[in-house]
């Protein structure tokens, strides 16, 4: 595992964490979607590079799915949904951007501390990938928790899945990576279709997760 391969893989994984931070920073929905497209592309590069160094051809399919599906189709679809349903484009956060970022840094530190100490015996690249992947997952979850808009929650969820794809590709020779990425894509597709098909907007004034809360009272 000579230096160059490890450095490039490390660059891409680090890049993905950086993009996750950028997503946390956004306060407009459209900007958030663009950043998410970037997130998918960086993931695709990382997976492609892993495919190259592990010479596992099926990983290229995952990279392709990442670019086409999550890079292009999903952001465009969400973009059009926001336009057609006239969804409220301002992102309301629960605890403000600053504290979210601090929390994000804390999560990354935690995942690095835990993962690096735990995966002592695994090979260097796998340890790196899994640690950074856990950071991306935690950042995705943080985004879901601290944003009120349903769409931003969906984007948070998708970035979590990207983290998982990164971890899966990092583990050398893991079967089913392609099947899992397909499964995730189906899951995400369900989300987008669900939002559109069930016309969440029609049922509730805005897709604002808070609006959903008002219908709690009926369920004692």
């Amino acid at each position: 595992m000579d230096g160059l391969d490890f450095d490039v893989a490390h660059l891409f994984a680090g890049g993905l964490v950086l993009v996750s931070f950028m997503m946390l920073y956004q306060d407009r929905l459209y900007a958030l979607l663009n950043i998410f497209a970037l997130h998918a592309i960086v993931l695709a590069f990382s997976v492609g590079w892993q495919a190259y160094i592990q010479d596992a051809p099926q990983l290229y399919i995952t990279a392709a799915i990442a670019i086409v599906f999550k890079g292009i189709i999903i952001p465009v679809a969400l973009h059009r949904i926001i336009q057609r349903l006239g969804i409220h484009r301002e992102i309301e956060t629960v605890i403000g951007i600053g504290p979210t970022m601090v929390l994000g840094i804390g999560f990354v530190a935690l995942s690095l501390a835990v993962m690096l100490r735990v995966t002592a015996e695994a090979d260097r690249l796998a340890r790196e990938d899994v640690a950074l992947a856990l950071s991306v997952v935690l950042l995705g979850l943080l985004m879901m928790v601290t944003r009120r808009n349903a769409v931003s929650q969906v984007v948070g969820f998708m970035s979590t899945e990207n983290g998982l794809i990164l971890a899966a590709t990092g583990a050398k020779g893991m079967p089913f990576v392609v099947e899992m990425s397909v499964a995730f894509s189906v899951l995400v597709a369900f989300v987008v279709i669900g939002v559109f098909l069930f016309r969440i907007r029609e049922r509730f004034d805005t897709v604002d997760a808070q609006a959903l809360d008002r219908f709690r009272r009926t369920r004692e």
Partner: protein
Amino acid sequence: MSAAFALWCVGLLLVAAAIGTAIPRRHVATPIVYGASLVASVVALAGALAALIGPAPVSTATLPLGLPWLGAHFRIDALAAFFLIVVNLGSAAASLYALGYGRHEPAPHRVLPFYPVFVAGMNLVVLADDAFTFLLSWEFMSLSSWALVMAHHRLRENVRAAYVYLVMASFGTLCLLLAFALLAGVDGAYGFEAMRVRDAGPVTAALVLTFALLGAGSKAGLVPLHVWLPLAHPAAPSHVSALMSGVMTKVAVYGFIRIVLDLLGPPEWGWSMVVLALGGITSVLGVLYALMQHDLKRLLAYHTVENIGIIFIGLGLAMAFQAYQVSWAAALALTAALFHVLNHSLFKSLLFFGSGAVLTATGERDMEHLGGLIHRMPLTAFTFLVGCVAISALPPLNGFVSEWLTFQAILQSPDLPPWGLKVLIPAVGAMLALSAALAAACFVKAFGITFLGRPRSPAAANAREVDRFSLATMFAFSGLCLLAGVLPGLVIDALAPVVGGLLGDRMPVQLDVPWLSIVPIAEARSSYNGLLIFVFITASASLAVYVIHRFASRVLRRAPPWDCGFPDPRPITQYTAGSFAQPIRRVFGTSVFLARERVDMPPPGDRRPARLTVELRDLVWDMLYVPVAGAVDATAGRLNILQFQSIRRYLSLVVAALVALLLVLAIWL
């Protein structure tokens, strides 16, 4: 009688239950079900008597049911045989009584299926020989009695009574489960045989006793845990209340004796203080509660609490003596307790049958609407009177003998060294004496207000005598009360193998004492002869009657009552249950129930009647149960907001849990 034979009787009972479930509404179902349970109980009673008196060795039986690797064990030893007698005597009487009483049952489909199951459950508890079967049949008994209490479920308070009952019953079962878990130890040896061999350390033994006391005490009705009893017993049909009060509480006492005296090793003297104190407080509080009631069945239910207190005093004394190896005194105390178990099941069932008869005849349970029933129901009145005399522990009858034995046991206790007992036992003796006296007052009130005086309502005015089955049962039990009172030596010698089995020593043989009197302790030579007292009283009474009718005038004239010259008083001026208890309420009630009387006197010239209201507070309920229920309700209220959170907050819960665990991992590893 072998254990298998007993199981066949239980099987017959279950068949009767099946019939009751299949065709409850048809008219023929009542006689079949009660007839079958009568036959089963009588057969089991005969078998149990043979097992107790005859030299039959201990017999066991095993069924493949219950825990897969243990199976269900059943065993009849002397203790089980005696309690089988108590259970089946009570159930035979209740079934015979129900043959007549059952016909007026408005909802037979809710009583017939569960009555035989209830009797079968009680038999099984006494027969069980391993923890799982014991608890299975214990809960079986509770469930079927819950269903019977729920029989008239249209009344709101019956549903509430059944609810309180089953929650307390399951609390009791969980406590017993903990006691058995401790006895079984880590490797889970749930058979009683294994538990007897395995001697638990002092700490475990103390814990086992506490849980046994909580478990059996809640079912028997020891004071802090008695609140369900006066709610549940009256709500059930009368023959079931008789069974619950007279017999189920005794099965609870059996549970306590089996765990503490049989499975556990020799007791510490400290425990006996707890049992004695609880017994004393229960007996006094029980009878004081009873005095304040004006509902006949609730009065009898509260009074069961008093008699359970007396039984536990006997048990406490037995444990105290056993702790110091004064085994002959322990034998005396345990015989007194077991004798009272038999007595109480006799006269309490008799009184409940009487109250059932009154309920059928008048449809009323409230004493304020009864009165003068002795004229229209003379036979029921006579048997109820015998029951009242017996329960008030008056000499010729059986109630007095067991109390007399308990007093003799108390008198043997000064040579017990520990200071705690030296102070506690006289105090408990005083409480026992006080509760005996108050019991007499309570039953003068019960009998006087219900049967004597003038009818206070039209229902009481045209009551009719009950059917012959009920009367037959009541007369049979009155006879038994008299027999046990007059020939106590017989019962004491029958109890000897039971006491011998448990404590290793027994009371001196009573039958060869001259003139059939009983001398519990040889050197003290204080003796009591029920038969001679009975003969003397009847002889002198008949002598007086003969002399007067021979020499004095025999003329008799009817006239309106003298009543110090006041004009003919209306029935309303009679003393009621509340006014009869007023002096005693003023003496004891102000401290025990915080009794307050408020008089609302109208201004002069205003024609509306004055109103006297008495409010009593049930301190146990207010101090223990209301706070607990309040705490549960408050916690439920506070936690309830978690149901109405947004998705984001639920997600933050998940993320928080994940981060917390990761932190733990980071710190620990």
